[in-house]
């Protein structure tokens, strides 16, 4: 004899998710859970931010994907307890991109290739856009200097916002930006 017990929807969803390992779609009236809405709305701009830091598109996409995965692990699909998702994502992209650059340098003594060296296909495609002399000079900056410039001139953040994002002091932001501009200026002069 088979006895069928009616399960509450939440319990049924939980059991199914535990068995299959894939989330059971909730009735969301076409909007999706908050984290997916945020993903679809912010992904492109975050990839653009990341590509200015890591220089190639596949890595930039991986950076953004990793940040969203970490956000999902920490706050779940409903983003409960997260006050400022945009700030979290921006900081996450900065930290992950910086880790990528560090790993590159540590793992294989990586320095971003100097101008004149044949770049990867994706990077080559990106190099068709933008001032090549500026990007060549940017390769002489440290990861932190580059972050400050990107947040300042691409994201348009104030010094205080940059300090909050990078979790450093405002004075550090000022001095880092000043030093970065000096380096860029010297390299651009030398290339004239």
């Amino acid at each position, binding site marked *: 004899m088979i006895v069928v017990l009616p399960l509450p929807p939440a319990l049924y969803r939980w059991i199914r998710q535990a068995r299959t390992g894939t*989330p059971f779609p909730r009735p969301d009236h076409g909007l999706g859970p908050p984290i997916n809405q945020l993903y679809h709305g912010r992904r492109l701009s975050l990839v653009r931010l990341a590509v200015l830091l890591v220089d190639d598109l596949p890595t930039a996409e991986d950076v953004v994907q990793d940040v969203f995965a970490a956000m999902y692990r920490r706050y779940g699909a409903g983003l409960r307890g997260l006050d400022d998702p945009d700030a979290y994502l921006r900081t996450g992209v900065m930290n992950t991109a910086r880790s990528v650059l560090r790993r590159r340098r540590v793992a294989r003594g990586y320095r971003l290739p100097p101008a004149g060296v044949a770049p990867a296909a994706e990077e080559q495609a990106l190099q068709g856009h933008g001032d090549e002399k500026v990007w060549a000079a940017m390769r002489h900056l440290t990861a932190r200097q580059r972050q400050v410039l990107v947040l300042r001139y691409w994201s348009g953040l104030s010094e205080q916002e940059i300090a909050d994002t990078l979790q450093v002091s405002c004075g550090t932001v000022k001095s880092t930006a000043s030093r970065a501009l000096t380096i860029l200026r010297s390299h651009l002069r030398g290339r004239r």
Partner: protein
Amino acid sequence: MSSELEDRIRRAMADRAGAVTPDRLQPAIPPTAMGPPARRRRMLIVAATAGLTAAAAILTAVVVLHPHRPDDVVPAGPPPAPSTTTPPPLSPTATSSPFASSTAPATSPGR
């Protein structure tokens, strides 16, 4: 105040970022499609571990509190009595006459 260098940096970054268009991105994989959050996985593992531990504790308690005592054993019944049947005779024997009597014959010679 914006210097010429700063304007140049802004333009370079805007051009490079603008080269990243939606059609150049990989297909989107929303976070919820990447698998259940680790926190939920951890909860499942903890729940399973707790369940197994509780089952083991209950089993141990049952074994300790109700040990298998010898007097619980029902004594076995007496062994079956040895068989008294004798094998059937191999050759036919003379049967006594149904009229035979154990008494002495009525007529005794010499008396």
